[in-house]
């Protein structure tokens, strides 16, 4: 028995992150259903099966053990997809964990050895938290100046009027009063929620103001951007620094950090429809998230308690994220001919990760809901998609427009991209036990697990 196996199954933690409504729940449901189907010998995930080269992998849901994270409820979400009429899985509001045990037969000369056990932990990592990483490189003054400049822009100022009014009313040397801090924080937080829900912006910081960590909220969360000096600014600066400490701690904590690989989801097609401002904002968020992945643990972190705890638990301390998959979701809303452009566009929107990190962009439909058709328009054949619209069940044929393979220019925005209808999912075969029809998910998993198969 190889020495590494004697220490227990190898744990690989994959963070699945994306801003709200990017399709995290559907992706995790599809990953679980398809991997379990593959383990049961069903022909799901063909690209991954091809990488396995005929080896029969066994897949089972891992026991929850004693972690404090809620488990991702696969059966409930899968039941929604297989129901007749089907529903899309409900949004998950809190972080959750999907853990699967894989028994991988060895390849080559080691084929006669017992199979290798691998524990894949997919952590539903709030995308909002990823946007906190760029904060680590900023001071309170720099962040405050940038945040206020953004709030005062013409398209956001009306929504943030209450907060901006409060800020302007504060005296130059405002006292470090708790009531003032709490009031300003509540107004800023409301402005962030409205900017997300009403204006459709994504790049909003701090992320934990929009997606708080589970448990009671610590008092240092009550801060807001403020320029200038004085006791109140000093209090807010101290709280901002405490917030950054918590972000650093979460990054290496066994509960939320310790990620080995990352999947970053983005609804690029919806951003194309939303217009130039929303697209630029989503592109900035995606760029900042990928840029933040350049963040590397310092030597002080390596020598900390987390490393000691990992060694005591007989597992290697995390060496950081080694693979990143950038995924444009809902790829089945455009025809196969355009999915290459969608992946290329996603690739262009993300910064190249730091050296030693492999990255790739994919166009994925985790739960397929259309089929490709060819329509004739003014005598010319056009590749389109066909699917049943929810909730009325009418069959639609859709061609939302041409997907560019580079960030769109002014000419593109002259002819807006059509809104994407909500289609119902294709019926999963054998009540979900045969997996969930998908596009590109098998290639994405093949890339993420390439060095482990």
């Amino acid at each position: 028995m190889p020495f590494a196996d004697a220490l227990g199954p190898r744990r690989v933690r994959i963070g699945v992150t994306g801003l709200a409504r990017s399709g995290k729940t559907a992706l995790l449901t599809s990953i679980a259903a398809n991997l379990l189907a593959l383990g049961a010998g069903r022909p799901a995930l063909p690209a991954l099966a091809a990488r396995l080269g005929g080896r029969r992998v066994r897949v089972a849901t891992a026991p929850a053990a004693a972690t404090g994270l809620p488990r991702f409820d696969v059966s409930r979400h899968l039941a929604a997809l297989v129901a007749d009429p089907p529903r899309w899985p409900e949004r998950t509001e809190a972080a959750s964990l999907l853990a699967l045990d894989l028994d991988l037969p060895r390849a080559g000369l080691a084929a006669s050895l017992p199979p290798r056990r691998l524990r894949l932990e997919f952590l539903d990592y709030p995308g909002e938290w990823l946007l906190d990483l760029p904060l680590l490189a900023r001071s309170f003054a720099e962040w405050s100046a940038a945040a206020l400049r953004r709030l005062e822009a013409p398209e956001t100022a009306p929504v943030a009027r209450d907060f901006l009014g409060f800020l302007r009313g504060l005296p130059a040397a405002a006292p470090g009063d708790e009531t003032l801090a709490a009031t300003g924080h509540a107004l800023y937080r409301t402005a962030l929620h409205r900017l997300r829900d009403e204006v459709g912006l994504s790049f909003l910081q701090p992320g934990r103001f929009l997606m708080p960590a589970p448990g009671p909220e610590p008092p240092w969360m009550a801060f807001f951007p403020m320029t200038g000096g004085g006791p109140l600014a000093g209090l807010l600066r101290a709280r901002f620094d405490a917030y950054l400490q918590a972000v650093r701690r979460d990054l290496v904590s066994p509960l939320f950090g310790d990620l080995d690989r990352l999947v970053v989801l983005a609804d690029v097609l919806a951003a194309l429809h939303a217009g130039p401002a929303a697209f630029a904002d989503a592109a900035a968020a995606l760029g900042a998230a990928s840029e933040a992945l350049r963040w590397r643990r310092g030597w002080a972190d390596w020598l900390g308690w987390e490393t000691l705890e990992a060694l005591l638990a007989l597992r290697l301390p995390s060496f950081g994220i080694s693979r990143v998959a950038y995924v444009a979701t809902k790829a089945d809303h455009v025809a196969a001919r355009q999915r290459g452009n969608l992946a290329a566009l996603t690739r262009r929107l993300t910064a190249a990760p730091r050296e030693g990190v492999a990255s790739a962009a994919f166009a994925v439909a985790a739960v397929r809901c259309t089929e490709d058709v060819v329509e004739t328009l003014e005598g010319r054949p056009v590749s389109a998609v066909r699917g049943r619209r929810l909730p009325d069940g009418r069959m639609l044929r859709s061609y939302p427009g041409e997907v560019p393979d580079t960030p769109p220019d002014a000419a593109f925005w002259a002819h807006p991209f059509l809104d994407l209808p909500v289609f119902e999912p294709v019926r999963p075969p054998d009540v979900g036990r045969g997996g969930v029809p998908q596009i590109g998910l098998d290639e994405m998993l093949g890339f993420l697990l390439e060095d482990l198969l």
Partner: protein
Amino acid sequence: MSETETRPAEARHPAPFLRVEEAPAPRLEPVAPIALPEPRLRPRLPLTLIGATVLVVGLPALWAAGFVADQFARGAALGWFTLAIALLGLGLVGGAILRELRGLFRIATVDQLRDALASGDPARVRGAARRWARLVPEAGAVLPALDAVADPAAMLALLQAGPGAALRARADALGRNAALQAGAIIAATPSPALDGLAVGWRGLRLVRQVAALHGLRPGLLGTLALLRRTALAAAGVAATELAVNAAAHALLSNKLLQHVLGDVAGAGVAARRLVVLARAVGIACSPLAPE
């Protein structure tokens, strides 16, 4: 088809559109059947075997009938006496054949139970568990708990943790016993040529013991069918190789046994094979998926 929305576009690209089909359409099915269950090939008795069986059973029956008729021609008492002997003999043979067939059918019920347990339908899973409880008393203990849950996955987990684990432990114990006996037999066998025969005999007995543990009482044909299933289940045993290694190691670390087997080439291998065989037969006889 009605056109609902069309926008102008650059000349090089067609204009975007969204069209509603007027005719109602059913829910989309997967384009290619990506995951149809693999059809199970049921073994069919070859015609030659059926013909041979008819001859083997039919001709003696005809011969016996003719002989009884001849005996009646010689005398009524002699005829009745011959008829009684013929009926007794043929009845015993028929009973044995029926028992063989029943053993075979019981093995086939394992497949039916597997299908039902994997159906995902709570009622079918519960029904299969009840039928299994008729074969295996250990399964009866979890029936009240099964009635209390509605999730098929939870029902399977209960069956695995209760009767599944108990049967595995008892099959492993039988395998260890057989391994000990095989080691002793090999050590006592005067000729190495007889070693294979001795271990083969013990292995066959082990197959029947583990089958009986699972409520199957196979005859000759049933044992042959079980051996075929065991060969197929051997792949599943690869997954439990670690556990088997540990069991064999624990067995062979017995000081006395090491002393006896240490000098007998192949005894350790034979013992280990019997431990593996017990696990493989257990997988073949159980309607639960191997862990």
